[in-house]
């Protein structure tokens, strides 16, 4: 395998595995999270590497990567804007927020999937309920969470932080 990992990163993976003394396989999600945080997406090599590390067939890692929407098989924009689309947020203006974010970032594509701006800076995507229904519409930008994104001014203000 052509991947070279830093000792620090490998240590992190090994530490995560210790959380599951009964079954290594349990560490699949934590390892995938760590990988995606480090490299941005889950490559074919990542799947092979993690499968080998956890002593399972690679198909069983692929099964997870393709099931959980948070894992990506391809790199996306530098900043990932996830707009909640489920009922309370929809009532609170999620579709407007999504359209606004697309407009402001220039992200293009079908609303049903990730939309990325041509400069690769932003990816705007609908996600299901983010569990903050009382402050609709809500969204996450990368790992930060934002409530009541109900005006273009507010959206613009937010984007300033993500250049």
């Amino acid at each position, binding site marked *: 395998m052509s991947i070279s990992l830093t000792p620090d990163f490998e240590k992190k993976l090994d530490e995560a595995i210790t959380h599951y003394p009964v079954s290594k396989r349990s560490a699949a999600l934590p390892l995938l999270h760590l990988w995606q945080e480090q490299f941005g997406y889950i490559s*074919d090599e990542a*799947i092979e590497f993690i499968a080998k590390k956890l002593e*399972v*067939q*690679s*198909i*069983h890692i*692929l*099964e997870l990567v*393709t*099931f959980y*929407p948070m894992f990506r098989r391809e790199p996306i924009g530098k900043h990932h804007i996830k707009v909640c689309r489920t009922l309370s947020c929809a009532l609170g203006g999620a579709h407007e927020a999504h359209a606004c974010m697309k407009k402001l970032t220039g992200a293009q594509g079908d609303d049903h999937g990730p939309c990325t701006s041509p400069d690769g800076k932003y990816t705007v995507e609908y996600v299901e309920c983010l569990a903050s229904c009382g402050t609709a519409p809500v969204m996450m930008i990368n790992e930060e969470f934002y409530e009541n994104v109900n005006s273009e001014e507010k959206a613009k203000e937010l984007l300033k932080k993500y250049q």
Partner: protein
Amino acid sequence: MSMSKTSINPFNHDVMPDNTPLVNVNYNGKWIQVPKGLNVVEVTQSQGEFLPHYCYHEKLSISGNCRMCLFEMGMPKMDASRQPVLDANGKPEIAWMPRPQIGCATNVTEGMGIRTNSPLAVDCRKGVMEFLLINHPLDCPICDQAGECKLQEYASEYGSGESRFVEDKIKKPKHFDLGKNIVIDDERCILCTRCIRFAREVLDDDVLGIVNRGGNNTVTCHPGKHFDNEYSLNTVDLCPVGALTSKDFRFKMRVWFLKETKSICTSCGTGCNVTIGSREQTVYRLTPRHNEEVNSQWMCDTGRLNIHYLSGEDRFTRPLSRVKGELYETSWEDVLRQAGSRLKTFSGKQISLLASGRMTNEELFLTKTLIDELQVSLYDILPRQGQGDKFLRSADLNPNSIGASLLGVSNDGKNLQAIKSGIQSGDIRALLVLQEDATEAGLSVEELSKLELIIYVGLAPNATAKAAHFVLPSAGFTEKHGSMINVKGRVQRLNQAHLPPGRAMDDWEILRDLRSATTGGNGIHTIEDLFRSMSAKVPALAGLTLNKIGDHGVQLSLTAK
């Protein structure tokens, strides 16, 4: 014997231990007794009925995902003192649950009520049937599974005459290469996971899985990897629909044209029970036939696919005899008369015989008779050792080594060197080769050319046939009757699925006729007669007839060699 069961199958939901207590169960209004803990699918089976299902398989773990076997379940009504309430007939009253249960995961307990034909149960099946078909391509006319498809089968009972689905169907991969022997059509797949469970639980080769989510779920193997297991084709049998198909069989023949003949596989010493699927003179497929004592419901891909030589272009279809160095077609009458009279000119010490561990007991018995009557002193079979595995493949690649030993034709190959030396020294001047190639047994073409007489009984050309003076065209294993004894000492039957090509004959008949042309012999007219004379002479077979061996064979008590 029970050892073999546990080693082949991780689960045996259909086999309950003999000492399982019985419980009383109200089955569709009738009180019956069944072994405690039996699942409801098996309970219906025990009553000669059938609870439709897709994902349930008696030899695999219970997954409960298809929901086809939903039934209405009840438990005995209890009074305040936790005693069952009895009805007017003194039978427990049943409290029926509003929520249907799946038969495969419900194990019967005392007093349980089962309704498999109530309006609720039937409605559940109709609902599931409709769900399974809405995204199905409905391409039965070109589907290999047509005719043996569970979707078709249950749709005729529980399907609707018209579709209520007017939306776009979900698109999934079609004819995706799963391995060297298998193709998958994911649009036909109903995600029952039988193939995945078989690979994981029976083969310990966990390479299949499901990718994506929800309606897009897709059975596959990891890109670039393959399901190339020696037992992969069992998943084609397990697949209740047309998703997994055999590359070898697909598009070759509609299954309803296939004649089914019960027989055994002859590719190794295990003797897996098989069903031969043939039409006219051609074998199209072998499928494993259930026998708990031998192969359960499985067989290896090597054995399964080892049928194409039977329909080879090069098969001998007429007897041949050598005239002035060339082989010419002739009649059976001539070939037998000439071969017999030539053979008679040699003494027993001048004749050697190479028989085969692929011959049936009946053929071997006649061979031994011939050996004795001609007083042939040097004879043997060609041993065949392979790798074998822990599952079904035997290291003994001859299907009937035990029979050859039992009937006194085999010396485990120890005589092969002596035959070679005899030919070299000129002591051996005539050679009978039955279903083997003498060059595989260590004889060179040059040595064969020294012989004054070679009689070859076999299917197709080889180095021996090339050197032979007489070629007697014989039958493949799907073309003959007879019996063989597997490595575990079980005597099992071969049945004729179709006739051998042209004028080729069943080997036992050839041997019978050759014997009669050589030593006179007596007139045996049927294979049954032959078996009777054999069982009269061979103590291990005493009391047996072909009929008694039946479709599942009989375990012999053989003393260790």
